[in-house]
């Protein structure tokens, strides 16, 4: 503080003035405001996202149905009277449904008008009727009031998605169909009920018959393969690299490569899967097995990195304590270090799995983008996954698929929330304080 030329030392005092204080308080208040504003901005965007998805998609959870009086004529369904399941399956239910439609609107005639009339109900109605009859053959010979799904276009009309006030040529339903539908409504023959089909069936060209269950099962099978492969391999790699491997140039090289792999675009993994699993090993196309393999490759670096970070965060004193009482290195890791690192490893795994759950691009490369109607029954069946289903439906021209796309996104988000919930519960179970 002393200058050689000045003998008096200069004393500098801290600035305790009110202006200085006010300035500091203002800066702090400003900082707090920015933080709160940022959080509100993030929440607002989340709300907009969820709001638009829910407002578009929630109508997909209901389906318009039309009641028809079906005459289950024994001569048409079971002419032999044997009630043999095979002959029941062979009967022409389509004409029965059509007869019922004509009976409902006897004034309609002419091929074109009749075709329009038949289009009021879903093309899957004959199948619905067949199932009802097969479930209860005693109904044959009676007349039943049965609810059938309306066609997707009428469903959209009923939900207000197709406007009535535009010229006839601009909408998918014509005036006659609207009149018939209104007549049915006035008669109490229409209703909106919960759309179970959406949750129980696979994809379909007809929106009213399309569902996400095929994609949900495909997702579960694929993620199961991913988890079973990436978790043990990832944890073992992390444990070996962190606890046992000598620290030398080779392990450095491996570490750098793992970190790089975590940043590789997912489509590259898809191409790799295509080249290796499909073309070289000849595994089936579109299969959850291959999808799971590709996603496991993609998830592995994440699991390894998270695992190593979790192992590093275990205090060294625990290792010393265990080694000090004569535990072998393996006992030290398996009895003490790994259990303490488990919550962190699980968090990393779930983050990797969540990323795998939302992944579309690599699965396109291995053919999981195909139109698949059947629910997959095993790891080698053709299947698709939820995000790919969303992608497919978003591409479909029918208006009814717009709401189904949003509904599928909701299912995907629900899946994600369930997975995160499982992670939180698992973590809480393993968590220990020290």
């Amino acid at each position, binding site marked *: 503080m002393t200058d050689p030329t000045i003998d008096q030392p200069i004393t500098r005092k801290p600035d305790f003035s009110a202006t200085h204080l006010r300035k500091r308080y203002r800066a702090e208040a400003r900082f707090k405001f920015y933080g709160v504003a940022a959080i509100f901005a993030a929440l607002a965007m989340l709300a907009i996202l969820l709001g638009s998805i829910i407002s578009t998609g929630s109508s997909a959870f209901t389906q318009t149905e039309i009641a028809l009086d079906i005459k289950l004529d024994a001569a048409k369904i079971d002419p032999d009277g044997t009630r043999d399941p095979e002959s029941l399956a062979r009967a022409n239910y389509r004409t029965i449904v059509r007869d019922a439609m004509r009976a409902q609107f006897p004034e309609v005639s002419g091929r074109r008008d009749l075709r329009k009339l038949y289009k009021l109900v879903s093309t899957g109605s004959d199948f619905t009727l067949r199932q009802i009859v097969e479930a209860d053959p005693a109904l044959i010979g009676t007349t039943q009031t049965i609810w059938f799904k309306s066609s997707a276009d009428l469903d959209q009309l009923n939900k207000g998605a197709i406007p009535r006030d535009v010229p006839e040529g601009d909408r998918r339903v014509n005036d006659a169909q609207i009149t018939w539908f209104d007549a049915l409504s006035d008669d109490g023959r229409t209703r909106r009920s919960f759309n179970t089909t959406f949750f129980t069936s696979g994809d379909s060209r007809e929106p009213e018959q399309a569902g996400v269950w095929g994609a949900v099962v495909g997702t579960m099978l694929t993620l199961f393969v991913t988890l079973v492969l990436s978790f043990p391999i990832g944890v073992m790699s992390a444990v070996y690299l962190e606890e046992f491997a*000598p*620290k030398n140039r080779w392990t450095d090289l491996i570490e750098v490569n793992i970190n790089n792999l975590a940043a590789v675009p997912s489509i590259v993994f898809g191409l790799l899967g295509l080249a290796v699993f499909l073309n070289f090993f000849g595994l089936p196309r579109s299969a959850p097995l291959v999808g799971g393999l590709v996603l496991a490759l993609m998830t592995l670096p994440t699991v390894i990195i998270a695992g190593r970070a979790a192992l590093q965060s275990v*205090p060294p*004193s*625990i*290792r*010393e*304590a*265990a*080694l*000090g*009482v*004569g*535990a*072998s290195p393996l*006992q030290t890791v398996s*009895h*003490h270090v790994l259990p*303490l690192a488990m919550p962190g490893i699980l968090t990393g795994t779930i983050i990797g799995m969540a990323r795998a759950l939302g992944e579309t691009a690599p699965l396109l490369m291995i053919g999981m983008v195909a139109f698949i109607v059947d629910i997959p029954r095993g790891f080698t069946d053709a299947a698709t996954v939820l995000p790919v289903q969303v992608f497919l439906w978003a591409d479909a021209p029918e208006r009814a698929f717009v709401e189904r796309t949003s509904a599928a996104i909701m299912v995907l988000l629900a899946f994600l929330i369930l997975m995160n919930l499982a992670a939180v519960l698992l973590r809480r179970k393993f968590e*220990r*304080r*020290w």
Partner: protein
Amino acid sequence: MTEAIYVEGTVRPDEESVTGMSEAIETDTTETETAPFPTKVKANNVDAFYAEKQALFGVSLDVPENQVTALIGPSGCGKSTFLRCINRMNDTIPICRVTGDITIDEQDIYDPAIDVVQLRARVGMVFQKPNPFPKSIYENVAYGPRIHGMAQGKADIDDLVESSLQRAGLWNEVKDRLGESGTSLSGGQQQRLCIARAIAVNPDVILMDEPCSALDPIATARIEELMDELRQNYTIVIVTHSMQQAARVSQRTAFFHLGYLVESGATEMIFTNPEDTRTQDYITGRFG
């Protein structure tokens, strides 16, 4: 002998003179060792390196059985490094290298045929900071006996846990809450739990690395009492920063400085009549 020490005292010693000095000390110990305590741990010309940096220079020290041997010296003098050589804890540090001979009961512990896990079961260790496992008190003590197959059934383990906690002077405080986490205890109790954990595997030697530095004076006093009791059955080597503690608990003291063992001998000798000026300076508080 006096000649050698004169040389040491004036200049920072080089290798040769240290070897001379350690020989001198060896003769010293053999002369003074009239007590009926046979040598348990014998270190001969031990060097330790962290990568290129040498941390121990030709340390030779005899640790007698059923005695408390205190290692004192200023920070960074290598006393902890030496302690960790005795149970080969330094093996866990990849860059650390140890040369020279250390024998326990005349068995070379750096012999490749020696199983380091068994060695660590024979040489227990208590660390500077209490480090109980984040498990129950019972599990903390039972862990060692379990992995070493020391007990057949639950009853055996129960006995071992009780006797170990009793010998560590902790039984009465924790007997009603053995299921609680070891980390829920106070610092002094945690350290005694760590001692119980170490003696549960019935080691020959117990190494203590500044066991009281994180504890208050009352807890320290308890641990010191405990050391005096444990000495009946175990050989104890303790690293301490507190010269008072060394004077209170130990029978033998070794003074380390800059990686060299400067002087070792009976505690009263070191504290009342040290032969080396550096020892004198240190214990009178002139440095360190």
